[in-house]
């Protein structure tokens, strides 16, 4: 046990170092303040949603439904996120050599990997679960047993989604290990799994309807779909120690079976994925040697990083892929789209009138959910010294990162916009304004993402997934983008009485202004932050 604790401590040093409070360092205090602010922001959002629902359900004495619903939703999020995180968190980690050379059981190594994943998900889940608990306690008379149950629930909540996603992650890694181009195979197979999950969740109506007919209540319905969610609500209302113990045993058993089950294949798959394509040993030719401008070389370096890290592509590209699917679905499934809107009570005339706004909205959602730059500095890792030793200005290095991110997102967004503009015959001026916004909105996300990453770099990591999916930088960037998105929605609502083009013009101006301010900040302060980067 002592050995395992030492291993966990060693493996999580970099994650935990941020929480070591040293009041002598101003930068650390400000980092902690920002982390606290981020936690507060996420928790406030959850608290407002949960209290809104609890308020509506309190008169019927059905507050417990919110508990099961939240547990269900949090678990689904953890599971979907886990599908594309688990493969790279479990396999081909930088500390493989060290851990595998130690005199410890193979299952212990796998346990450490999954435990690290668990701790992160536990922290993330707490942001949603703790405010829910507090709100529930405000709206319901609770006893000590509720607090005990909730603490147990919080600790067990990530286990089942993590176990499921680790199994899927292992299958994806095993399958992709069979291909010559493992990275592309991994991206392709993960995308198929994710699309499958999305397809199932959109076509689950008949399945749920079937259960609903047999379910006596909403709670029973959720329990039938996902046991822990219903079990928690049941324990909150009607506490029995035997039920709680059974609940704990079931979760722990699942976890233990997963560790021992996966460790039977883990090392074979891990060593298989390490086989590197060594190329053809062809001698270099003059054609291999070409001169390019500094900016082009820097942009292509970023492309190389982007396309060689599957989790980076899946995470950043997901918003764009969904946008393109939505845009082309609107174009080619035009009748179904109209039918959905008209059956939900929207008038046909107002649909045509509001299509440009809808286009802007989906472009905004795609732009502000695609934060590529928020991990670009961190992904330099120890290579930051190479870039800093080169005769190239920090400004050029940083702007090349923004340019690379723009080239990865804006052309795809423009394709979707053009398709929609042609299909819905949007007038020329409006199209121009939408194009302007399609360029300016991702820029806001890219500039802000890079600035945030410069403030919160994570240059030491065992797997790129820790940077792309689990760093403070990506969360802060996500929150910033979310705030901009909400503010944009508010502006659209505020200027609803203005004509469409005036509204778009105001938005374009505001986005342009934000871009300009962020650009100035990046060039002036961001370059200094980059120059001060150190491990």
């Amino acid at each position, binding site marked *: 046990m002592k050995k395992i604790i030492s291993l966990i401590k060693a493996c999580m040093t970099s994650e935990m170092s941020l929480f070591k409070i040293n009041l002598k360092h101003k930068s650390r205090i400000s980092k902690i303040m920002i982390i606290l602010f981020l936690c507060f922001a996420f928790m406030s959002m959850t608290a407002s949603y949960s209290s809104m629902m609890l308020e509506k359900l309190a008169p019927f004495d059905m507050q417990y439904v919110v508990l099961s619903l939240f547990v269900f939703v949090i678990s689904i999020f953890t599971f979907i996120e886990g599908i594309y995180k688990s493969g790279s968190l479990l396999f081909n980690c930088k500390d493989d050599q060290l851990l595998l050379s130690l005199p410890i059981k193979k299952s212990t190594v796998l346990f450490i990997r999954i435990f690290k994943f668990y701790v992160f998900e536990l922290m993330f889940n707490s942001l949603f679960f703790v405010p829910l608990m507090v709100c529930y306690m405000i709206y319901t008379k609770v006893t000590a047993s509720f607090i005990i149950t909730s603490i147990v629930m919080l600790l067990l909540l990530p286990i089942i989604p993590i176990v499921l996603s680790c199994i899927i992650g292992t299958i994806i890694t095993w399958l992709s290990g069979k291909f010559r181009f493992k990275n592309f195979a991994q991206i392709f197979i993960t995308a198929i799994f994710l699309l499958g999950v999305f397809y199932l969740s959109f076509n689950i109506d008949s399945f749920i309807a079937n259960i609903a007919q047999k379910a006596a209540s909403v709670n029973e319905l959720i329990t039938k779909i996902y046991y822990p969610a219903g079990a928690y609500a049941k324990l909150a209302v009607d506490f029995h120690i035997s039920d709680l113990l059974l609940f704990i045993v079931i979760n722990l058993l699942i976890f233990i079976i997963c560790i021992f089950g996966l460790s039977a294949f883990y090392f074979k798959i891990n060593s298989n994925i390490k086989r590197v*394509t060594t190329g*053809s*040993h062809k*001698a*270099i030719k003059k054609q291999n040697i*070409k001169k390019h401008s500094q900016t082009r070389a820097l942009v292509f370096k970023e492309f190389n990083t982007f396309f060689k890290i599957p989790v980076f592509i899946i995470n950043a590209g997901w918003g764009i892929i969904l946008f393109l699917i939505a845009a082309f679905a609107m174009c080619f499934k035009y009748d179904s789209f109209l039918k959905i809107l008209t059956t939900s009570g929207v008038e046909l005339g107002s649909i045509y009138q509001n299509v440009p706004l809808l286009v802007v909205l989906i472009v905004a959602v795609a732009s502000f959910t695609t934060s590529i730059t928020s991990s670009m500095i961190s992904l330099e890792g120890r290579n930051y010294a190479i870039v800093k*030793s080169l*005769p*190239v200005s920090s400004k050029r290095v940083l702007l090349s990162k923004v340019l690379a991110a723009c080239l990865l997102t804006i052309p795809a967004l423009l394709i979707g916009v053009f398709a929609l503009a042609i299909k819905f015959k949007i007038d020329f001026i409006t199209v121009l304004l939408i194009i302007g916004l399609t360029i300016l909105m991702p820029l806001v996300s890219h500039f802000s993402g890079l600035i945030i990453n410069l403030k919160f770099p994570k240059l030491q990591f065992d797997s790129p997934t820790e940077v792309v999916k689990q760093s403070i930088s990506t969360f802060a960037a996500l929150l910033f983008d979310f705030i901009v998105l909400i503010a944009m929605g508010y502006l659209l609502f505020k200027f609803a009485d203005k004509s469409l083009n005036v509204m778009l013009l105001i938005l374009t101006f505001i986005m342009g202004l934000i871009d300009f301010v962020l650009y100035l900040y990046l060039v002036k302060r961001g370059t200094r932050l980059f120059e*001060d980067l150190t491990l």
Partner: protein
Amino acid sequence: MIEIKNVTKKYGSKKALDDVSFKIEDGDIFAFIGHNGAGKTTLIKAIMGIHDFDEGDILINGKSIKTDPISCKKIMAFVPDNPEMYENMKAIDYINFICDMYDVDEETRTNNIMKYAKLFAMDDKLNDPINSYSHGMKQKTVLIAALAHNPEILIMDEPFVGLDPKAVFDIKEVLNEMVKAGKTIFYSTHILDVAEKLCSKVGIIKNGKLIKVGTMKDIKGDKSLEKVFIELEETK
């Protein structure tokens, strides 16, 4: 020429470099030696402009790395102690990337890459991804990238670690060739017998302070460099 003027670098209250001053002329091979954690890499990173320092200045051919870093870096090349590179790239792409940064024309880079790739027996391996390389192959790749843009000053942090004897011999030949052409070489090392044979000047650093600097002949006298170093290390 490298001129280090009263450079001090602090990590919190600890001085990693304490008022370090010395000069390396054109055509010198300068060996920088010291125990682990003495401050060698800190000074090298300060010379390369990788990190800042608190006091003093470093002049590269008369220009300050603090105020004119781009001009200084343009004439220098850096070989780090641990050959960290963009592992997902092919070696040839990495070398091309470094050459692009130094704005090297196609003819020069082609000649130099071909020349050094052949010298280090890497000509049939540069098309492979770096993550398939051994430590020594990575080190050779970093060296080819560093030499491909004809630097006037070569800064190396323990360059011989992990290299096979043939590669060590070849590097020594390249360094001698560079010195004959009037170029400056500064490198840190723990391999004292190589430094003794190869270098014209030596600096010894201990706990951030430069305790000896001068020509190899003056520093070691009749003794071996190893003996001088051990004696200095043992004195408080």
